């Protein structure tokens, strides 16, 4: 019984800390994007609120909270209200299976005059739930995140929103296959689906060295799954007003935006875990390596947004099926051949 209490308490503490850290990170990713886009375009970016504009996310949050929440009478009310919540929850949930550090607590902790052994059930590890099928879990939940966008678009009862929703479902169906196939190479090398074991298997060499093509196909498909430029057709301003969130206002709009950035962070963290050695790295504590690598990927997302123009929708679908899917299949074939020869 005391074991059960220990698991619940420790997991709760870890989850609360992680959610707090993640939401802060999401808020500051929005600032980073505006700042960096400013620099890329030779502007200053936000610099009025606080030193270097550092309090801007806070000001944005307060503004969104106090704006009028317009709910159009012709919406499907329940789904309209539910959609932003689904989007954010599905974007944050994968983090519970991603190992963000080696170990974050000593093996034995003395609380209330009793020694609590944290090594049982891996409670001192830097991961909330060390799931056996962690990789599949992460992809399952992030494939759910598309529902937030589809439902937001459908329930708004607006043709531009609906078009955004239809586009995201077509995009998701096309790119989900490539994203799944591109990580199978990792599975074949590591021989496990557990994310902690995949990270441990990279202590010698990061998997990006063995899987360069897999990494490129994963990253491209990930950009499409996060609906970022050059694949952000669901909200492309020149065709669809604002796409799926045209009819949203106030904090519901804020939640949809937050979920988009949370999705970027999650996808970056998955890329780091699978291809760039997760928390592995010399000198610094493991959690720093994880954060640094993830930040580099977030920077890449913003860099690409500042650099590339948008695809046309038929180009997007054709690219997904005729280029990315054959490439990831080819990668699978080569990986399999090499592994058989190496045996």
């Amino acid at each position: 019984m005391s074991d059960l209490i220990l698991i619940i308490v420790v997991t709760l503490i870890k989850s609360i800390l992680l959610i707090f850290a993640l939401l802060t990170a999401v808020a500051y990713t929005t600032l980073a994007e505006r700042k960096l886009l400013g620099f890329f375009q030779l502007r200053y970016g936000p610099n009025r609120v606080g030193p270097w504009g550092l309090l801007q996310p806070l000001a944005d949050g307060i503004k969104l909270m106090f704006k009028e929440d317009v709910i159009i009478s012709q919406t499907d009310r329940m789904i309209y209200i539910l959609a932003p919540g689904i989007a954010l929850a599905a974007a944050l949930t994968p983090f519970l299976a991603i190992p963000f550090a080696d170990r974050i607590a000593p093996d034995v902790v003395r609380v209330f005059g009793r020694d609590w052994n944290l090594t049982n059930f891996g409670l001192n590890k830097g991961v909330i739930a060390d799931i056996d099928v962690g990789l599949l879990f992460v992809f399952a939940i992030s494939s759910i995140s598309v529902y937030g966008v589809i439902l937001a678009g459908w329930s708004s009862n607006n043709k531009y929103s609906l078009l955004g929703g239809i586009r995201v479902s077509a995009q998701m169906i096309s790119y989900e296959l490539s994203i799944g196939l591109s990580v199978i190479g990792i599975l074949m090398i590591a021989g496990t689906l557990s994310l902690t074991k995949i990270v441990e298997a990279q202590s010698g060499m990061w998997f990006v060295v063995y899987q360069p093509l897999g990494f490129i196909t994963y990253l491209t498909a990930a950009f499409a799954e996060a609906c970022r430029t050059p694949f952000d057709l669901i909200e492309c301003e020149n065709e669809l007003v604002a796409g799926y969130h045209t009819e949203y206002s106030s904090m519901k709009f804020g939640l949809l935006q937050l979920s988009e950035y949370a999705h970027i962070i999650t996808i970056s963290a998955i890329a780091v875990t699978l291809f760039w050695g997760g928390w592995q790295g010399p000198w610094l504590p493991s959690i720093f390596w994880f954060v640094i690598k993830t930040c580099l990927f977030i920077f890449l997302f913003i860099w690409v947004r500042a650099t590339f123009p948008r695809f046309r929708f038929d180009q997007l679908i054709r690219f997904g099926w005729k280029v990315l899917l054959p490439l990831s299949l080819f990668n699978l074939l080569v990986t399999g051949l090499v592994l058989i020869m190496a045996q």
Partner: protein
Amino acid sequence: MLAIFFVFSAISVISALAVILNRNPVKSALSLVVCFFSLGGLYLLLQAEFIAVMQVLVYAGAIMVLFLFVIMFLNLGPEGLKERRGAIISPGASWGIIYLLVPIFLSLLYAIHHPQAFTGASGEYTSEAIAAAGGNTRSIAMVLFSKYLLPFEVTSVLLLVAVVGAIVLAKKRL
């Protein structure tokens, strides 16, 4: 454990009923997603993590997205179903359903109180055997790629035929 089982099974039964009772096709599809999630939860209770995650990944994550895509394309609203409002089922059919449901309900009650009468002898794949073999995923893969290899490969040919057939039917100029 039993309490969690009842929660998940109640959710799955209620959402499955919502699939057929909702007049709005999008909401029916969403109820089906909820149903798949609770089925995933039931698989987890049986310590079948791989099948649980696959249930969510394939059914909720891919197939239902495709369904929603088609429903939204056809723009099916609740309007098209209005003329059928009134009695959902005829009185005779409802009596038939009651005659059908009562024995099922009674046998379920009996099963809950006498589980050993229904489960029978346990097979080869007990949870201990699976743990010794190196986990759920590995055991499934071992069986799938050795004993059931031929059906597995034939299924892929079947899917290929379906893909080719769909393209032939849908594409105007080949």
